[in-house]
């Protein structure tokens, strides 16, 4: 039994996850039990592994629970778990995310878990981190959608101005999407002189954004307004 598991581990390492997963679907409960301790060890590393892998491990977690209840559920967990613990060095471990708990709704044991190979996941790990950071900020603050052509009023706390809130009202002429560093430009007339300011959308210094009006524009970057010298406002 142990050798069988060992052999399947090596097989899995060579061929990658998904195919192997399907092949091992019907292994017995007995094969499952002895390596339960190793799987428990893997649970410990659960928090440090990124989301696609996290799904798999949570899946492992839920099925462990169901296993304890006497339901003979999915198979392939143990060899997979063992493999994971053995090859944990090639993971990108990031800081534990507090919002990833194991109570993620995972329906009935699906027959096929689709997830990328670890090195493929590593390539867009920055994208995943970025998206999570954006969601984190969005949860704390209500950030409205800002598109070019909107007339917007901001309340900004300027650190150079000794922490006083200044209101900035102007038209959004450009928006640049870059994850957490999404910036937008505002053009306004201040005391007869045109001023353009660029702000990061998710900056903590921006206390409030209010959309006053929406103008119809036919492009994404309204740099032609610089030559137009919009009067007033």
């Amino acid at each position, binding site marked *: 039994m142990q050798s069988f598991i060992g052999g399947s581990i090596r097989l899995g390492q060579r061929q990658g996850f998904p195919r192997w997963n399907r092949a091992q679907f019907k292994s017995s409960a007995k094969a499952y039990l002895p390596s339960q301790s190793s799987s428990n060890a893997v649970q410990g590393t659960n928090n440090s592994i990124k989301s696609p892998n996290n799904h798999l491990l949570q899946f492992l977690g839920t099925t462990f629970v169901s296993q304890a209840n006497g339901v003979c559920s999915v198979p392939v967990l143990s060899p997979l778990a063992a493999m994971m613990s053995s090859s944990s060095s090639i993971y990108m471990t990031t800081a534990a995310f507090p919002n990833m708990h194991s109570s993620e709704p995972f329906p009935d044991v699906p027959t096929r878990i689709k997830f990328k190979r670890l090195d493929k996941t590593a390539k867009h790990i920055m994208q995943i981190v970025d998206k999570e950071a954006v969601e984190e900020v969005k949860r704390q603050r209500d950030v409205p959608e800002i598109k070019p052509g909107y007339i917007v009023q901001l309340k*900004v706390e300027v650190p150079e101005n000794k922490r006083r809130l200044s209101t900035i009202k102007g038209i959004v002429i450009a928006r640049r999407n870059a994850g957490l560093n999404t910036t937008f430009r505002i053009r306004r007339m201040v005391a007869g002189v045109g001023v353009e300011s660029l702000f990061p959308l998710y900056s903590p210094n921006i206390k409030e954004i209010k959309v006053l009006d929406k103008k119809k524009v036919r492009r994404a970057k309204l740099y032609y307004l610089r030559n137009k010298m919009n009067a007033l406002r």
Partner: protein
Amino acid sequence: MAASFASKCSGVGRSLMDGLRNNFANLPSTSREIVCGSFLYQQQRTFIQMRTVLKVVDNSGAKKVMCIQPLKGKKGARLGDTIIASVKEAMPNGKVKKGKVVYGVVVRAAMQRGRCDGSEVKFDDNAVVLVDKQGQPIGTRVFGPVPHELRQKKHVKILTLAEHIA
């Protein structure tokens, strides 16, 4: 009409029009932000350097000055820096006359200046306030907005005289 025509044709056409108008600031190739293809779509505003003509926004008597030396800065002066300038155009009776060499503090620059919180600010023109060697403004009023950067450069007097702090 011209603006809509420019927006209809490609970016190259627009840059040509802009380039013809403002050849001056574009010629020195030192630009701070190299956005790919930016020279086709927008102007790259650069530093204030020798022979840059700036507007004077106080009531010291001068109207236009030409920068002859930026103090501090190998490539040129930015927002909040001091420059040495020569008065090119002056009001008939004012404290400074044409041809005089004066110091000035740049209060508005067309080149964007980054702030510590990640925001940037840029104005539509280049403007300067004449000061003496100690940094005290010669005039008694300042017109137009001034940026917050002056506070850090210790030009508090100009900030108090300003009518709007951008």
